[in-house]
């Protein structure tokens, strides 16, 4: 599968209702907030984690879609079978130069692991080729309007330790965002996929899988903490060339998300209007709406 030939940017909108999209370890797991603006944040790594989990779920962790950065819940040993079935022959050539060897290792990792091909990875070698920059770069997602996290006290009617038995119940805390619509920006740099020496070989199929992951990943990430999270819109800008045909920021500015004039307190995605200024789409850029 050959590497992608086009640069892309995307605007990804997702929302949360009565849940905590991304806890802040500095703040006792309260939802992340930008203190000056009160806008909610979701880190890039949080979203990438969900993409990895989705791909692992869909592809069963088998090469060429294995996931290097795994959560413990995933069973490692399943890999072997699939790998043997595929019969990919490794090519450990005895190369005299260390750099060439490192490049071979890197290439092999890119070929087998989806997350390394997509997001990159740092591998220990003393040559530069051991570090891969993946074509996909994501930024922090930020909420459209300020969020107001709420602390909910909950009780549990059983206790953990016998010595607490007379207490009958224990109290716990949960943080929720009643509602928040988040906007995230992403970049796909084709050059980092297709470059002769540094390219990771990230293909059209991989890209398709990545966009599917964005659309569907929240449906496979249900938990008590998350509440209801949902992908709302995925708007993709496809450039005609690998280097791109327009400034990324100018494309992001074409997508405007605003609260409906009669709504004071957003509680649903339908309280927002998403407008795309199609008339000002620069030449050589295609707009693709996946959601």
């Amino acid at each position, binding site marked *: 599968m050959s590497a992608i030939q086009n640069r892309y940017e995307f605007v990804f909108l997702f929302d949360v209702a009565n849940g905590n999209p991304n806890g*802040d*370890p*500095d703040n006792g797991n309260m939802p*992340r907030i*930008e*203190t*000056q603006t009160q806008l909610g*944040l979701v*880190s*890039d*790594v949080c979203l990438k984690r969900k993409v990895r989990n989705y791909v692992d779920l869909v592809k069963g962790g088998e*090469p060429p879609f*294995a*996931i*290097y*950065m*795994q*959560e*413990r819940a995933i069973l*490692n*040993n399943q*890999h*072997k079978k699939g*790998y*043997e079935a595929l019969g*990919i*022959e*490794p090519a*450990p050539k005895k190369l005299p130069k260390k750099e060439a060897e*490192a490049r*071979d*290792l890197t290439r*092999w*990792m890119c070929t*087998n692991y989806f997350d390394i091909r997509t997001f990159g*990875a*740092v*591998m*220990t070698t003393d040559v530069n080729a*051991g570090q891969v*920059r993946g*074509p996909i*770069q994501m*930024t*922090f997602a*930020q909420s459209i309007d300020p969020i107001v996290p709420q602390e909910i006290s909950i009780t549990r009617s059983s206790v953990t330790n016998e010595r607490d038995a007379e207490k009958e119940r224990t109290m716990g805390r949960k943080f929720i965002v009643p509602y928040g619509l988040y906007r995230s*920006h992403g*970049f796909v*740099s084709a*050059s*980092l996929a297709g470059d002769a020496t540094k390219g990771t070989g990230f293909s059209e199929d991989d890209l398709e899988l990545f966009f599917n992951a964005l659309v569907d990943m929240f449906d496979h990430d249900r938990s008590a903490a998350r509440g209801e999270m949902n992908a709302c819109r995925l708007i993709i800008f496809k450039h005609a*060339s690998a*280097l*791109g*045909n*327009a*400034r*990324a*920021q*100018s494309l992001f500015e074409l997508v405007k998300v605003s609260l409906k004039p009669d709504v004071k307190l957003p509680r649903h995605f339908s309280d927002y209007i998403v407008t795309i200024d199609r008339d000002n789409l620069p030449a050589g850029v295609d707009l693709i709406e996946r959601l």
Partner: protein
Amino acid sequence: MPYGVKLLVSGPRACFTRPEMKAERVSYDTLTPSAARGILEAIHWKPAIRWVIDRIHVLQPIRFQSIRRNEVGSKAPAGRIKTAMNRGSLEDLALLVDEDRQQRASTVLVDVAYVIEAHFELTARAGADDTEGKHLEMFNRRAERGQCFHQPCLGTREFAADFRLISDGEPLPKAIAETRDLGFMLWDIDHSRPDRPSLFFRAMLENGVIAVPQPGSLEIRR
């Protein structure tokens, strides 16, 4: 500077990590020359040229914010990759992130904008058809159209940089009215030496502008 370029870069957040505080990252007060070089290289670079940063204009007040994230503690070990490759199986070649957790805080800059003034020099690897005009033209064309080899970032990749070329004759945006000593700042990494030592310089913010010493000048300390 006959082959100078001016590029406006901005973004909601940035982290130009101080080398002495890199476990729990603390950003320098401003864009560093090496990060500025990285941004220019993301737009256009060939082995035939070397970017040299002349001045950095700081356009927004310097403000910080702290972000703590779950990170992993180790890199992929080359030895194990090699074994797995020879064996032809991916078994046990994965990193269990919850077992190798490190929670690290980053002190990052918020709401930044800079003007990078730079020029390039031809290197020993320049061929006969590598003229200064050609590379300048390529850079300007790309920057003007918003093209780039990969999306440039403000220190780390999660903080993407928006960039805009400031064309010849266009007035420069106003820098902040601030003069202060920023202390020793990373100038760049010396990639030509085997252990890649860091090079530093004494950064002075004068009316919002940092004059960056030229390569080989005595102001650059090892």
